[in-house]
């Protein structure tokens, strides 16, 4: 009898978990008592935080991409395939190329998908740094931009890396200052609610910095449509802004499979401490896929993977699963081209952003390099 753990999604959560299980259950895997399968539809693992630096010409998209087979332990059965159907009652999933696969435990770590088409005009008019192609195209625009108005509009929430929109406007402000062009460039930041960030503490910290640096702010701005010809973006609240360069954080969505399987509306409804799906047995969700209310951030997926790894090992060994996720989130926040802040928080303790420093900026860049050790389960 072999216990089969199937992990769908080879992003941070799925990859860290696969390597975590390979180490934690090495004896059982060697004896053939446990099989761990990681299924991803791309042969590469993608580290998305690199994309923030691409528009400024500081990194290449390739720096955020490595083959999964180089990162995943040999004890893991890695399959490059796409899951097309899921029957949680039968404990069975269907893959496009590999056919049916039965599992004893399933972990969904399928992440976020961008859906700019939800907002008329957004896909054709706005640039983003939430995809390789978006970051590359934005670079082409930004590197030749010397005057005019840049509007960064946060259109969809929740979105990946909630600090990244603040980081972008802080960086672009500093970048134009360093090049002596800031007086010719207006920067406007829009956000859907009444402050500049979903988390009140981070919002209260960021707003004075934006005011001090002349970054204009439009709150309660929920983009309804974009007119690419007129170069305007209009909100549900009735405000219209003109732009010369539009950077949009597009609406995000999960994969259809989750809703079709009855696991939740878009995201998987989970117990926010155990990460077990509420609507099915033996199913976990991780990272963006799990509706926990915490940020869609790599650190979250990383810590959650550790919790799910411990819980699965306990279940496999017939012991009570006691590991729980406490909401732990870590995040560096760039405040310019050579300074950054840092926040750490959880379900009970709100963030208190650290004073920006060059040391924290270099810590962020150093971690981005060390990330590949995280993906391997070593850090």
């Amino acid at each position, binding site marked *: 009898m072999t216990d089969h753990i199937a992990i769908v999604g080879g992003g941070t959560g799925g990859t860290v978990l696969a390597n975590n299980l390979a180490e934690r259950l090495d004896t059982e895997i060697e004896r053939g008592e446990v099989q761990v399968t990681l299924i991803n539809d791309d042969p590469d693992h993608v580290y998305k935080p690199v994309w923030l630096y691409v528009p400024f010409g500081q990194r290449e998209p390739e720096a955020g991409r490595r083959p999964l087979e180089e990162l995943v332990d040999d004890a893991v059965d890695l399959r490059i395939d796409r899951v097309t159907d899921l029957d949680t009652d039968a404990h069975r999933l269907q893959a496009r190329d590999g056919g049916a696969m039965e599992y004893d435990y399933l972990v969904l770590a399928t992440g976020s998908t961008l859906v700019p088409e939800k907002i008329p005009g957004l896909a054709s008019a706005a640039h983003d740094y939430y995809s390789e192609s978006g970051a590359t195209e934005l670079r082409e625009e930004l590197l030749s931009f010397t005057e005019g108005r840049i509007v960064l509009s946060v259109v969809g*929430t*929740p979105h990946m890396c909630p600090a990244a929109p603040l980081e972008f406007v802080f960086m672009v402000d500093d970048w134009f200052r360093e090049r002596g062009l800031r007086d010719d460039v207006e920067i406007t930041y829009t956000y*859907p*609610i*009444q402050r500049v960030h*979903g988390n*009140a503490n981070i919002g209260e910290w960021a707003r004075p910095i934006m005011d001090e640096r002349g970054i204009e702010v439009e709150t*309660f701005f*929920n983009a*309804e449509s974009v007119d690419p010809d007129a170069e305007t973006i209009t909100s*549900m*609240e*009735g405000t219209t802004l003109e732009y010369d360069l539009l950077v949009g954080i597009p609406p995000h969505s999960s994969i259809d499979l989750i809703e079709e399987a009855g696991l939740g509306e878009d995201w998987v409804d989970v117990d926010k401490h155990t990460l077990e799906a509420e609507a099915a047995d033996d199913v976990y969700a991780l990272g963006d896929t799990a509706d926990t*209310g*915490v940020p869609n951030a790599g650190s979250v997926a990383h810590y959650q993977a550790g919790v799910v790894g411990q819980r699965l090992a306990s279940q496999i060994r017939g012991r009570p699963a006691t590991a729980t996720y406490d909401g732990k989130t870590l995040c560096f926040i760039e405040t310019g081209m050579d300074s950054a802040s840092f926040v750490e928080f959880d379900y009970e303790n709100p963030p208190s952003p650290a004073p920006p420093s060059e040391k924290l900026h270099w810590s962020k860049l150093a971690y981005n390099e060390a990330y590949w050790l995280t993906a391997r389960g070593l850090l």
Partner: protein
Amino acid sequence: MTDTDIAYDETVDARGSACPGPLMDLIGEMRDADSGTVVRLLSDNDQSLTDVPEWTEEAGNDLLEVDEGDDYHTFYVEKA
């Protein structure tokens, strides 16, 4: 909870969501709603008592009623 006889077309159950989840869930529902649609929002986050009235006023929608409860609050919002 107080009883109300306000008829509603859609319900957004955002109980359990951390701020600003309930407001964003409401905005998401209102985005696709036709004029005159009444949405009932359930939220157990006290911040919604501030967020929701501020946004409905900003967006020009009508906040028909707020029922403040011990366990959760109920908001009735009509799309303008």
